[in-house]
């Protein structure tokens, strides 16, 4: 494996020394490009009091290419599908090499605070969300209790 770029080393150090509130990111000891991530559900969202596990991988072309991020914890959200894939602009077309692991994870946390059923990845969830928002939020809360403890 090629040596780790200085930028990745610096980002990793800062994630440990100056962590983002509500977010942890720990590199895997066998592969320093693979991170185990936890994100706390934002307050006043249906995901409040949940702790969600994610995986984050830095591809060889990082930072020219966005990190790959996926939820491992089951979550009921219109922009996250059943495989945990996330529909988020900064992970796709709006990626910029000036963004970092911490800014990406903050965007994911913000997505939990404001689900967007008009730009869905999980179509069935988005339909529920639009048809009956109260029921969808109740279900998201229920799944948080069931799976994100």
């Amino acid at each position: 494996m090629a040596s780790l770029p200085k930028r990745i080393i610096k980002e990793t150090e800062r994630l440990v020394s100056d962590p983002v509130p509500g977010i942890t990111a720990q590199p895997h000891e066998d592969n320093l490009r693979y991170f185990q991530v936890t994100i706390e559900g934002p307050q006043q969202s249906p995901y409040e009091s949940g702790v969600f596990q994610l995986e984050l991988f830095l591809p060889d072309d990082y930072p020219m290419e966005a990190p790959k991020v996926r939820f491992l914890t089951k979550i009921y959200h219109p922009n996250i599908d059943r495989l945990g894939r996330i529909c988020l602009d900064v992970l796709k077309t709006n990626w910029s090499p000036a963004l970092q692991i911490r800014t990406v994870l903050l965007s994911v946390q913000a997505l939990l605070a404001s689900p967007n059923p008009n730009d869905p990845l999980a179509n069935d969830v988005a339909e529920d969300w639009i048809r009956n928002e109260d029921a969808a939020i109740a279900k998201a809360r229920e799944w948080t209790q069931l799976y994100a403890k």
Partner: protein
Amino acid sequence: MSTYEEEHNTSGNSNSRRDLRAQIRNLYQEDGSSTALLQLLAQLIPESMQEELLNEKEEGCPETFIDSLPRVNKCDLKGADACSICCCGYLDDTHPLVVKLPHCSHRFDLECVAVWLSKSRTCPLCRDDVLSHKPKVDISNVELEEDWGMYG
């Protein structure tokens, strides 16, 4: 005695060049972004450069654009300034090669931003479309420079 064009095997005579210039002027005044204008302009440009100008890829900036980015002098760099792509201080390098983007003036290591701009046209920091700011062309003096085609 042979003319410049005959000697240098360039196409057309001075009349057609004058016509061409008139057409370009009209087109520019109608629509600065016209493809027809680009094609006419391309006739004044060496063939080796035409392909790059006309078949510009949708994503990414032409190499000529990246090569022409203005350099930032080492004395204008402060100790804490760092490239936001590699996160390294510019002055960590004894010979930093730093450029600034047009319009937004955001700075990066040339080596870093060149890779990004080869596949994108946006500034990494502000998402400004770096190719959208056309240099202002003053066409009021074009008429006076009747001999400019000679240097083509």
